[in-house]
């Protein structure tokens, strides 16, 4: 052992005395520095986000992405150095000398340890060099915790994997070209569309996941740490296996391996590493391990909650382990009469029902994935089925616990996201599919929901404030609401009133964003949009409490939506780039406006038919264009809105499969769906706004406003009749023919 430590020390000192080591460190620092050059920063942003120039959070821009690039650059630089250094020993015949007093396997290990020491030094140096830059750029959003964690798990882990991998590849092949080729292939494979979304393949160029500036993104951190551990285990497995092939007695690789196997204990490390990695992949808690579902975005959050039982009272209690990210709780139902014997409770696949009792007696249940109709399967949903005597009355108590997962389908196709289900110390965001979170049956019943969150949190249920009940032990506070709800968002929130005289509009945001809200007067901007819509569309629809909340959530959400009196927008609209950049196209500020406009146009205001072209999105995009035109001028609106729509529509008209629909049927289903989905998105976000613009050019702005106002005024009529605003309604109101708007 002493000899091993001495050898590691000697190897480390040898490396530190080499000029090459310092040149590589300098190259590494330069490669990271390039990520801060504005032009390259934009190009990298586009590259890392599948061609979209989406400004994410400051953490993504100044910490995550530079250190991901640092991981790739460091991996290439140190990988080649490890290889060159190993090959040099072979070329100058010093291997024979070394192996005379030390086992080659041990020598390989000492080299790895020495390189790891250098890699740690290199990482610390890079972090020190970029610390002042990041502190300045991130300003009041800079967090030490974030700055230390991400470089370590993204960059250092990537370099460590490379050192193990390259040493292993060289010991296996004894050939620099083969080692370099395999390294090149393993690196290049990450750039291919087939694997770029696979977090288990992105070893030295991790995916860019949206990370929050304010709330730490605990869910993403967990998945990153988990996958990096798996990849590290794989690289250790490769090295330890390859070290068994180290040539002995001038034998070839196979005979040397057989000689090494005379000590079978040497297989312990590779087998153990492979087994642990395999178990970790197979049992990862982040996905549902369910069937792959044909993706239908419309159904992602659509769940069935009908218990087929009459209840008089429902009570839910949710407790959170913010470190592990788990939820536990109870779900109590006072059942008055069951309509049928076989009952089902729908819940997230990661949540396991621990006990189900009826009137104090255990009830047997079985949990199943919903496979009956793949197209209608709600993602990441399971149901637990049980049987009660028909017409029975009593208290059903369900105790559950687990880590909320997301669908395997999403995981495969969209890359990992914690957008809808995350539990962390600074942020809890849960969607409808946790046990019992939405309503039960159709009969009237009373409902009480209690959530137990860290004391610093101010939770919102569907955007509405909850009632504080009591402070509990361990820095936990209990909050209560008497409504059924779909979304819980709990964080150290501040809530302020928006100046709008026709309804109580509130803006909820994380305390850390308070500075930006006040500096950039976003409350006033929201008020401006509301007033514009008031003047040009109509009065805002609210519920019986006449309240609406605009909620700023973690940038993990990536966009926004509006529903149930609640406009949800991700906090990246508050990033310094988004707030200061008004020349660089339709940016996050305008997303902010877009989502507020949805309060008027969409499920909360005027309901729209969605026929693949005519939709609330198209009308909202057009309205945002009008606001932007009024705010920033016609030239800006033309450049970043109407010109973009025209370009997309022109491309769409020329699309081969649109010109020749017959060939679409010849394509495999997945390609067909992908093309149709892309056409659908372009239709809603570009073709329809362009058609509305054409209508505006025919009618004039004032008449166009009058048409929209007329349609908006019919919203209650639509609600009463269960209808929605169709393209025909618009044409009739405008006095236009379909042909007039053809593009």
């Amino acid at each position, binding site marked *: 052992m002493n000899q091993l430590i001495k050898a590691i020390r000697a190897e480390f000192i040898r490396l530190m005395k080499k000029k090459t080591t310092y040149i590589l460190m300098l190259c590494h620092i330069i490669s990271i520095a390039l990520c801060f050059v504005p032009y390259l920063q934009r190009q990298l942003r586009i590259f890392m986000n599948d061609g979209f120039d989406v400004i994410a959070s400051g953490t993504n821009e100044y910490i995550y992405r530079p250190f991901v690039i640092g991981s790739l650059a460091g991996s290439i630089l140190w990988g080649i150095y490890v290889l060159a250094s190993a090959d040099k020993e072979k070329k100058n015949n010093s291997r024979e000398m070394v192996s005379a007093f030390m086992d080659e396997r041990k020598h390989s290990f000492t080299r790895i340890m020495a390189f790891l020491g250098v890699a740690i030094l290199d990482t610390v140096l890079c972090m020190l060099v970029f610390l002042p830059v990041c502190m300045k750029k991130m300003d009041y959003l800079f967090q030490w915790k974030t700055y230390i964690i991400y470089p370590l798990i993204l960059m250092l882990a990537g370099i460590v994997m490379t050192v193990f991998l390259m040493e292993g590849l060289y010991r296996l092949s004894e050939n620099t070209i*083969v080692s370099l*080729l395999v390294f090149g292939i393993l690196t290049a494979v990450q750039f291919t569309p087939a694997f770029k979304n696979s977090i288990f393949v992105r070893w030295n160029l991790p995916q860019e996941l949206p990370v929050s500036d304010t709330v730490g993104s605990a869910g993403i951190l967990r998945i990153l740490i988990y996958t990096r551990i798996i990849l590290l285990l794989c690289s250790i497995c490769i090295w330890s296996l390859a070290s068994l092939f180290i040539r002995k007695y001038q034998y070839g690789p196979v005979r040397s391996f057989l000689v090494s196997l005379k000590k079978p204990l040497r297989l312990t490390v590779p087998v153990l590493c492979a087994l642990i990695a395999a178990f970790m992949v197979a049992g990862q808690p982040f996905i549902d391990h369910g069937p792959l579902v044909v993706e239908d975005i419309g159904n992602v959050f659509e769940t069935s909650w009908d218990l087929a039982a009459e209840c008089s009272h429902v009570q839910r209690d949710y407790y959170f382990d913010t470190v592990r990210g788990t939820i536990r709780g109870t779900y109590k139902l006072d059942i008055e009469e069951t309509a049928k014997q076989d009952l089902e409770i729908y819940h997230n696949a990661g949540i396991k029902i621990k006990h189900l009792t009826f009137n104090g007696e255990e009830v047997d249940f079985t949990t199943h994935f919903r496979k009956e109709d793949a197209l209608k399967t709600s993602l990441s949903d399971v149901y637990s089925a049980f049987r009660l005597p028909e017409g029975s009355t009593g208290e059903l108590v369900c105790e559950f616990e687990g880590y909320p997962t997301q669908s395997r389908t999403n995981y495969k196709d969209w890359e990992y996201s914690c957008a809808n289900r995350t539990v962390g110390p600074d942020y809890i965001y849960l969607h409808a599919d946790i046990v019992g979170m939405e309503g039960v049956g159709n009969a009237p019943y009373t409902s009480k929901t209690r959530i137990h969150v860290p004391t610093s949190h101010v939770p919102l249920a569907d955007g509405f404030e909850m009632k504080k009940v009591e402070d509990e032990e361990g820095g936990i506070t209990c909050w209560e609401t008497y409504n059924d709800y779909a979304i819980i968002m709990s964080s150290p929130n501040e809530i302020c009133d928006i100046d709008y005289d026709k309804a109580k509009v509130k803006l909820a945001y994380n305390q850390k964003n308070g500075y930006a809200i006040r500096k950039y007067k976003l409350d006033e901007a929201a008020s401006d949009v509301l007033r514009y819509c008031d003047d040009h569309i109509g009065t805002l629809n609210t519920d019986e409490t006449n309240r609406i909340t605009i909620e700023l959530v973690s940038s993990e959400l990536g966009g926004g939506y509006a529903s149930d009196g609640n406009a949800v927008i991700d906090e990246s609209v508050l990033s310094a780039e988004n707030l200061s950049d008004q020349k660089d196209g339709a940016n996050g500020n305008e997303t902010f406006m877009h989502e507020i406009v949805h309060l008027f146009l969409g499920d909360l205001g005027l309901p729209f038919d969605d026929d693949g072209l005519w939709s609330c999105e198209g009308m909202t995009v057009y309205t945002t264009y009008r606001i932007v035109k009024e705010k920033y001028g016609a030239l800006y609106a033309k450049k970043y809105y109407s010109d973009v729509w025209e370009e997309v529509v022109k491309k769409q008209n*020329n699309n081969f499969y649109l010109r020749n629909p017959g060939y679409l049927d*010849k394509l495999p289903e997945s390609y067909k769906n992908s093309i149709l989905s892309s056409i659908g998105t372009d239709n809603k976000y570009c073709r329809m706004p362009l058609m509305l613009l054409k209508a505006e050019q025919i009618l004039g702005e004032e008449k166009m406003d009058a048409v929209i106002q007329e349609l908006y005024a019919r919203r209650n009529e639509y609600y009463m009749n269960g209808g929605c605003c169709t393209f025909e309604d618009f044409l009739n109101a405008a006095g236009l023919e379909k042909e007039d708007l053809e593009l």
Partner: protein
Amino acid sequence: MKKIIKYEAKIILCKPYVPILLLINLLYSYYLLSADIILGVSDTAPFSGWSFGKYMGSGVLWTFLLSLLILITSNAGRKNVAVLTNVTGISPKKLNLVRSLIVTVFFLLSCLLIFLLGCVFLQTLFQTIRIGAYLAAFLLTALPCAILIIGFGTVAGNLHPAFGYVLIVLLLAVSLFAAAGIGGGYLLDAAGASYYETVSGLLESFEASETPFVIRGGYVLARSLYACLGIAVFWFGYTGSGKKDRFLSRMLS
């Protein structure tokens, strides 16, 4: 001579990474067809000459680089045995030519495999292929590279392997830049793949009609220049190769 060819073919091609990389190249070609070409290049039909040209060019580029790599690695270490090979009945320049011809045949056969894969894929999926346009694309992308391989093969033995690696990286960089429309565009592209994407994009009329497949004179000229470069290197190598080896062998003896 037959024995020498068989022996050299065995030495050059029977290396574990050759079939592995060839297989990877074929898988990549299939992936390209099923993920990229299937959608059509610049809104042309997936079975148009444009789409096939882009597919063929991309496949040829990687095969070309693989062939250069094989040439470089097969020459590494040969200097140690130059003393022996130089005194055999066959002259070093002929031996170099044999080696480069073997690699060129390997390259052309690999390209033919990629070509057939593309034809079978498109015929199976769309029941339509345009063989004339495909052949034109095949010849324009693969032939100049084949001539370059012959030329490079005749001089590779006298070059430092590092030069070969730098050349590969340079060719790859130029081709990737050409695909991104940077630098000389398709005029510098080693396999000429970017021509099909760039020019079809330029000719796209946006009038809901198919872009006609045309081969521009400039492209033919660029490909001919590549071929001429190969011939020039071959001429230089064939007339000059071996001198250094003979000089070395005299010195060593």
